[in-house]
């Protein structure tokens, strides 16, 4: 990405206690494709508290990555509607210059594939000092010293030497560490991590998740962790939101949702994963059918063709989200709205 001068961000007011760091209302993202209009995100509401780690779960095509890119204003080719408030400021109404100042400083993102997220022509150090110089106005030497510190905090041994190497000289796990160092360089209030460990081996995944947890906790950074792996959510997230066909179908604190999932899709997902601590399972309970493509979604529950508990109304109308108490919400006609 071309580095235009972002300029310094004037010191932001401390967030009022209780106010959400991020609030999203009726966010929709559509793409025009050769096959028709694709609704990648079809009306998402979201609240994220300061320091909260939210797991955003869903299968490919569920809209979780597009949602996170929309939060950063990074879907120029799509039609984005709705509201996104970050610290009370409307992101979608913001000037591009203002948005650039926030991105990389207050909101940072790390991606699944650290090789494509890093510029192969630039030294690792340059890619971190760039952020520090742009957003914090550090001089060359101060930025370098800070970058070495950041690499060390990200668990890279001999950072004084590593800082002058190129991405191809780093292993996959090291690249993800460098990307985390870069993302957290300005101590962001929100980190969006899109499948940050899916390209990594399990032993490295454990290291990287541990690192993200430690670093964001010490900085008080809120995290949106996008993953398809329910195990990662169970171990790393305070809350989770399950996406299906561009919508959040269930959300809530991690413990209660895993203990008593309400949406048939969430139930199916949890049952369909083989578990290491449950040997001798005779048969997995698979969810029949295929996830929808997002083209021409009917105005009814998108899960109904795959649902074993389908009701007549599921084929007619979109279920509203119902509050089950304790922050646990579900969008399913099995749970009628209390009068």
């Amino acid at each position, binding site marked *: 990405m071309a580095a235009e001068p972002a300029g310094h961000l004037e010191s932001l007011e401390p967030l009022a206690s209780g106010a959400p760091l991020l609030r999203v209302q009726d966010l929709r993202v559509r793409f025009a494709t050769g096959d028709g209009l694709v609704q990648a995100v079809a009306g998402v509401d979201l609240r994220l508290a300061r320091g909260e780690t939210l797991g955003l779960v869903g299968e*490919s095509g569920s809209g979780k990555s597009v949602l996170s890119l929309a939060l950063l204003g990074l879907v120029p080719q799509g039609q984005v509607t709705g509201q996104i408030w970050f610290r009370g400021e409307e992101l979608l109404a913001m000037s591009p210059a203002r948005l650039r100042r926030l991105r990389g400083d207050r909101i940072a993102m790390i991606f699944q594939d650290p090789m494509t997220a890093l510029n192969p022509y630039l030294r690792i150090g340059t890619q971190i000092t760039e952020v520090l110089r742009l957003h914090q106005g550090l001089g060359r030497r101060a930025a370098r010293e800070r970058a070495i510190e950041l690499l060390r905090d990200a668990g890279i041994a001999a950072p004084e030497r590593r800082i002058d190497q190129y991405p191809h000289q780093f292993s996959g796990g090291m690249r993800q560490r460098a990307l985390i160092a870069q993302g957290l360089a300005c101590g962001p209030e929100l980190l969006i991590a899109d499948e940050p460990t899916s390209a990594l*081996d399990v032993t*490295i995944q454990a290291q990287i998740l541990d690192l993200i947890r430690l670093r964001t906790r010490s900085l008080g950074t809120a995290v949106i962790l996008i993953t398809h792996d329910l*195990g990662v959510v169970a171990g790393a997230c305070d809350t989770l939101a399950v996406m299906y066909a561009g919508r959040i179908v269930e959300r809530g604190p991690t413990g209660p949702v895993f203990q008593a999932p309400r949406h048939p899709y969430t139930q199916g997902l949890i049952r369909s994963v083989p578990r*290491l601590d449950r040997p001798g399972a005779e048969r997995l309970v698979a969810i029949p059918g*295929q996830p929808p493509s997002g083209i021409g979604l009917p105005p009814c529950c998108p899960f109904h063709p795959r649902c074993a508990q389908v009701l007549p109304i599921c084929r007619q109308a979109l279920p509203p989200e119902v509050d089950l108490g304790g922050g646990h919400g579900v969008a399913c006609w099995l749970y009628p709205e209390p009068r």
Partner: protein
Amino acid sequence: MNELSERDPKGKRGDRNALPAPDPPLLEVAGLCLHYPQGGGQAPVRAVDGLELRIGPGETLGLVGESGCGKSSAARAIAQLVRPTAGQVRFQGRELTGLAGRALIAARQGMQMVFQDPYAALDPRMTAGELIAEPLHIYRNRGLLTLSRTGLAERVAELMEQVGLPRALRDRYPHQFSGGQRQRIGIARALAPRPELLLCDEPVSALDVSIQAQILNLFKDLQQAFGLAYLFIAHDLAVVQYVASRVAVMYLGRLAETAAAADLYRDPLHPYTRALLSAVPIPDPQVERRRQRILLSGEPPSPDQLLAGCPFHSRCAQRLEVCARHTPRLREAAPGHQVACFLYHPPEG
């Protein structure tokens, strides 16, 4: 099928019933090495370095390990898709390594592969029906299979049914199928020559969770229906536990440990296996909170920079002095449970 249908007579060696691998094995791999030469006078990359495996009829051997450990190279060397640098691959009683041309195709008819990415493995210009018929044509054209035109069409329809694809989809192209359906086409292709063994290389790791379960169940159903044996290569240890009767753990081209699945998951011996199992996340927050992780330091060394000694010693928290000097051999630590680690058997006896 003619010469292929002959099998070794079942040797009865009842005294070996403590071993989980039944005799005679369907596949026996010994001392398998696959070294990729590098330019510039550099040492070759030892992707597979002395691998020993046995798979009995109808058995599933799970081969696990992280990226770069050589598990895919091992499958390719077993199938002779790349020629191994050294070692033996005995399948249905016949040695494959010296064979070529029609003799190899004939000897390999009973061993077929299922690949990770069904999109890359399927020719985008062929319909599902043509893709599934292709292996039948290959064997028929070489006189290894007799099938009439109608017989071929019937066989394609039968295969589609066996893998759960509606016959009506036979004229569609790969891009018109979802990932799970494409993998079903890949499996139908592999089943076409009526194999006894499928080499499955990460067959579900490109699939979504809900679809993964469908395909895993399909593998189980096919095994029951046809008595298939699987070499099931995967990095996901929970998936392997679900499908495998025995498991072999690979690290940098060698086996670190092998045992019956139940034993390996209950009582892992090798420090690497232990770390690997402890790193797998479990989709249950209560379980996750109680778990103790063994965090490995560092990453596996590159297979072209193998140091002396145990390949795992640079990351091992329990390493002994000897581990940096000698390479441990795979040896029995408990009945049917083999481990290559000096913690269980000191060097020289």
